[in-house]
């Protein structure tokens, strides 16, 4: 099977096109998805291909169109709702938590909400505190939804369709810094399963648990460490809710050391949950306390040097890993 070069953006677009082609009930709606082609050019060209009913520009009304997406899902459609950036999604959080996530339970199992909500997340592009936060781990607190965090082209291409097959709400977070990432995909790339974490790099000395854009930083750090003789195993979580505990615990049981790398803020982030689960399920396997490298607890600043200092970096990851391996860890 031959392969082709493309970007993460292309892969995400292909996923949308594929979904729109496969199922008449699928449509995409959000701010600037149609005439503008998507804030990050992900949906460019889809308006021409599928028309304004199925690739639908919305007004600036996050409560309205997220709620309408939920309603349309109840009405038999399979909406893909795009929220431009995770910061803006806070405007729609009531709809997401109090309605989408709760309706099935509140109705005693009668009303399913098969809506997919996509949004961009993450810092590193100097967009300041209202466009750069990484709240996907925070969203993973909410029972009733699933949270997907594609880090690879394969997942950007494959997770959407699988999400659309879910009878329950699924949130997909695409890190802004990944859109230009290049890679290859097989010609017949398609849906992927969404329940398991993936060991992206095997290693014996410590386990680095991470996801989304931080995966690539962790892999860079792992290369650096390898040159020093430290073999880090790197796990891409892929899904933050539900977490795939088994893959994490199995790895930690082998390496006895764990480092979590999370672009979210540290306090109360998903990094804490992973640490707590390792505590609960693998305490007696641990040689060292689980460590975390997270984003500094600041609203992300604009200035590049400050923003980069706030985010996890290959250097800080490698340093934390070394610390875990050092005799006075």
């Amino acid at each position: 099977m031959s392969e082709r070069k493309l970007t993460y953006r292309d892969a995400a677009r292909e996923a949308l096109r594929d979904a729109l082609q496969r199922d008449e009930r699928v449509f995409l709606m959000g701010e600037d998805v149609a005439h503008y082609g998507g804030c990050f050019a992900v949906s460019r060209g889809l308006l021409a291909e599928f028309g304004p009913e199925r690739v639908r520009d919305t007004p600036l009304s996050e409560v309205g169109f997220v709620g309408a997406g939920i309603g349309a899902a109840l009405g038999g459609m399979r909406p893909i709702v795009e929220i431009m950036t995770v910061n803006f999604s806070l405007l729609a959080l009531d709809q997401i938590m109090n309605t989408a996530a709760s309706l099935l339970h509140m109705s005693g199992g009668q009303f399913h909400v098969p809506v997919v909500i996509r949004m961009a997340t993450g810092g590193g592009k100097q967009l300041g505190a209202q466009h750069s936060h990484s709240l996907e781990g925070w969203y993973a607190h909410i029972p009733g939804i699933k949270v997907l965090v594609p880090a690879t082209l394969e997942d950007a291409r494959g997770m959407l369709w699988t999400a659309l097959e879910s009878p329950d709400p699924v949130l997909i977070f695409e890190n802004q810094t990944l859109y230009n990432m290049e890679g290859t995909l097989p010609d017949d790339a398609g849906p992927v399963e969404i329940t398991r974490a993936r060991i992206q790099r095997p290693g014996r000395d410590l386990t680095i648990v991470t996801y989304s854009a931080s995966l690539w930083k962790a892999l860079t750090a792992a290369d650096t460490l390898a040159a020093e003789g430290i073999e880090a195993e790197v796990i891409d979580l892929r899904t933050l809710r539900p977490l795939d505990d088994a893959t994490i615990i199995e790895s930690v049981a082998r390496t006895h050391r764990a480092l979590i790398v999370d672009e979210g803020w540290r306090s109360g982030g998903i990094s804490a949950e992973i640490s707590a689960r390792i505590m609960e399920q693998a305490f007696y396997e641990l040689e060292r306390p689980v460590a975390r490298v997270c984003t500094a607890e600041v609203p992300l600043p604009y200035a590049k040097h400050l923003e980069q200092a706030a985010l996890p970096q290959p250097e800080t990851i490698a340093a934390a890993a070394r610390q875990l391996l050092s005799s006075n860890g």
Partner: protein
Amino acid sequence: METNPSELTREHGLDLLRRMLLIRRFEEKCAELYSAAKIRGFLHLCIGEEAVAVGALSLLAEDEAVVSTYREHGHALVRGVSAGAIMAEMYGKQEGCARGRGGSMHLFDARTRFIGGNAIVGAGLPLAVGLALADKMQSRSRASCCVFGEGAVAEGAFHESLNLAALWRLPVLFLCENNLYAMGTSIEYEQSVHNIAWKAEAYHVASASADGMDVLAVEAAARAALTHIRNGEGPYLLECRTYRFRGHSMFDAQEYRSKAEVEEWKKRDPIADLALHLKGAGIFTDADMEKVEREIAAEVQAAIDFAEAGTWEPVEDLTRFVYSEPAAA
């Protein structure tokens, strides 16, 4: 009464009367059962407002969905949700229309497309927009109806929903129960403009106000609204001016309004007025009334018996319906 008496058949008049009276008697019992601690949580009665539920919602076709509020017993009864299942729901029994998971504020019924009892004020409007969008995209011309109080009109969700529905010319009936109070806050303190129907013009949404204490007036106005909607002419906002005779919920000391005001409104009891009107038209007698009362008493008692006989869902099932069960997928 607005309608020319000659237009009203005995059959139809009796039907309206019986529906309103069922709500009244059912809710009177609810209040008693609340005092007896059979029903718990928050309980909101619509006593005094029955004409709105009956006048408007009786006109909907079987498959036309209703999205309602926490003050929804009347709406649910009119839509044909079984009185027994509603009562069992308030008892917290698994025979309830939401398996006891919802309670009074969250009645749901898939069979009649009663999409809830929603207790986030205003949050139901975007859902109705989405339901209507799904219909329009699937070339169905049926209406979706959203019921809300005048208090909800202050929420951003109202604004976003009306704009979306108008932009997309969606078949939504926005049914506003303007009872002059949002909990203990009079319309004077919550709305800079008291004429809710008029506010619809700011979105180019067709609208009308009806006397919400006159079931025939509500019915006439709702019929016109539904004709407009089903003809594909877009959304319609119908404001019904009404009054709740009881407190906001069972906890309400009602210090925010005078007894005199309440007594004044009680003189316009929609049930008594209709009965009088029917008698005046010579198509209704005291004997009829006694018969209806008897039948309804039996119906309400049957609902209570059903609830009493209901069973508790096993505690082991607590975490069901957070996500769909495999069969649903």
